[in-house]
């Protein structure tokens, strides 16, 4: 019935949240698609930074890795990796850290390390990479992940990157002055942390999605705002630009 996929809606909703004035530290995968869509639509001039050291990059196709040559070729400048993490991230120059993850909990903590016990993991995931410090040191954090009962879980087996910890003022108690996760863009809805408890709350449902569908894809009892809105459907222009970007990317990666 609809002429867009849930993944396209997720990417487009995430892209809309970015501004041309943002300095955005981009995670690979879904965040990278959203950040570049923003750059190609309403946020021309946004500064995209990848952990490989590329600052102000304008890739024509989405990178497969965070260090594809395309990122360096189109960057304003490329710095070393120690400099990237020390001067630019820890230095407090990033307004938005944009992350994905394998698992998330109600306080937007992320796990990308293991499923099962650390010493004898059932599934060994890639690990933290840049995320633990991106989550702590960016001015605020956006997260984008597809929902599902294995991804949105009651309790994380491992906290790789801190969101709001145990909720409330936990970040502040640990000395973090940054905002932490402020929005989570999924394939079904948009969530924001409650201003007091910091528990994720559904603020907007994507077109055609019901509360029951969202709850079925989440292992903890979800909170909904008093009147969740409907996420505006993708415009023809947003869809065309996103599909064009994916088509260019697919052709480039197959080469």
């Amino acid at each position, binding site marked *: 019935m609809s002429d867009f996929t849930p993944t396209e809606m997720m990417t487009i909703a995430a892209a809309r949240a970015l501004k041309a004035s943002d300095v955005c530290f981009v995670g*690979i*995968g879904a965040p990278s698609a959203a950040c570049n869509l923003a750059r190609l639509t309403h946020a021309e001039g946004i500064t995209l930074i990848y*952990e*490989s*050291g*590329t600052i102000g990059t304008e890739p024509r196709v989405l*990178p*497969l*890795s*965070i*260090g*594809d*040559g395309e*990122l*360096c070729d189109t960057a304003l400048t*490329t710095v*070393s*990796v*120690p400099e*990237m*993490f*020390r001067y630019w*991230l*820890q230095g407090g120059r990033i307004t938005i850290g944009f992350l994905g993850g394998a698992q998330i909990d109600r306080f937007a*903590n992320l796990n990308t*390390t293991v499923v099962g016990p*650390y*010493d*004898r*993991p*059932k*599934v*060994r*995931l*890639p*690990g*933290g*990479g*840049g*995320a*633990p*410090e991106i989550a*702590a*040191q960016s001015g605020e954090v956006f997260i984008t992940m597809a929902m599902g009962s294995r991804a949105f879980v009651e309790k994380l087996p*491992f*906290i*790789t*990157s*801190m969101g709001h*910890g145990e909720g409330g003022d*936990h*970040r502040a108690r*640990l*000395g*973090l002055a940054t905002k932490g996760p402020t929005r989570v863009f999924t394939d079904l809805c948009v969530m924001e942390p409650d201003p007091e408890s910091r528990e994720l709350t559904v603020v907007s449902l994507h077109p055609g999605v019901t509360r029951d569908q969202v709850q079925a894809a989440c292992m903890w009892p979800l909170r909904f705002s008093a009147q969740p809105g409907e996420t505006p459907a993708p415009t023809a222009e947003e869809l065309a630009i996103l599909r064009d970007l994916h088509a260019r990317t697919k052709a*480039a*990666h*197959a*080469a």
Partner: protein
Amino acid sequence: MAQFLSLEDAIRACVHDGDTVAMEGFTHLIPHAAGHEIIRQGRRDLALVRMTPDLIYDQLIGMGCARALRFSWGGNPGVGSLHRFRDAVENAWPRPLAIEEHSHAAMANAYEAGAANLPFATLRGYIGTDLPKVNPNIRSVTCPFTGEVLAAVAAIRPDVAIIHAQRADRHGNVALEGIVGVQREAVLAAKRSVVTVEEIVEDFGPRSPNAVILPSWTVTAISHVPGGAYPSYAHGYYSRANAFYIAWDAIARDRDTFLAWMDANVMKKTPADFAVHARPAALAAAS
């Protein structure tokens, strides 16, 4: 002064069983040919260090060369798992692998501390994460000026660092450009170093006064191995073989297909076989 050696001789001279080995290159300039040579020479009990183990360490781990790994992100970027790394951690195949897991920021700082001849690095890191609970080498230090408690990690001081670079000149100075990662820090932190290069030139010619150069006297051995970063890439020479990174997922998923691939493409090959990967870009550059 750096010595010009064949890759076989450079690895034989610089990499020994039991060594701590850092083969760096952040997505770019990964020294794959050198990794293959270590596997062919049957090195054992290596303590590997690398921010992103990537395919190069998936291969070394799967072939049983490593006893330990210090790392910060062990995946196939944009594709998924490193299956040989996972099999070692989850099932101890082909042998147990002791892991010391960090974040990128900590690894980058630890290399820099090694290059700076410091015993440890400090950073505002790991706050609210579980990593310090599983890695006893993530500790803390109190700032003597402000009282702030900061994360501390031991400096990385490898026995040998191995990198790939675009060019060496005839004196053995090494020039690299593009995404330079932590390669300079890794070489300066290590006791010995091996650099494979795309080209050996008479003189670097016109360049930025701030070009990234490792002087000859900081490098142990240089080997001319065109194409030696494939399937990673060499900025200005050839692109990342993203199609191969995608194909690796199926090759490495199964032990038998992995071993068959390694036998055909590593054990029965030589460093010169990497040259085929250097050609397309050389042609592109000439057109």
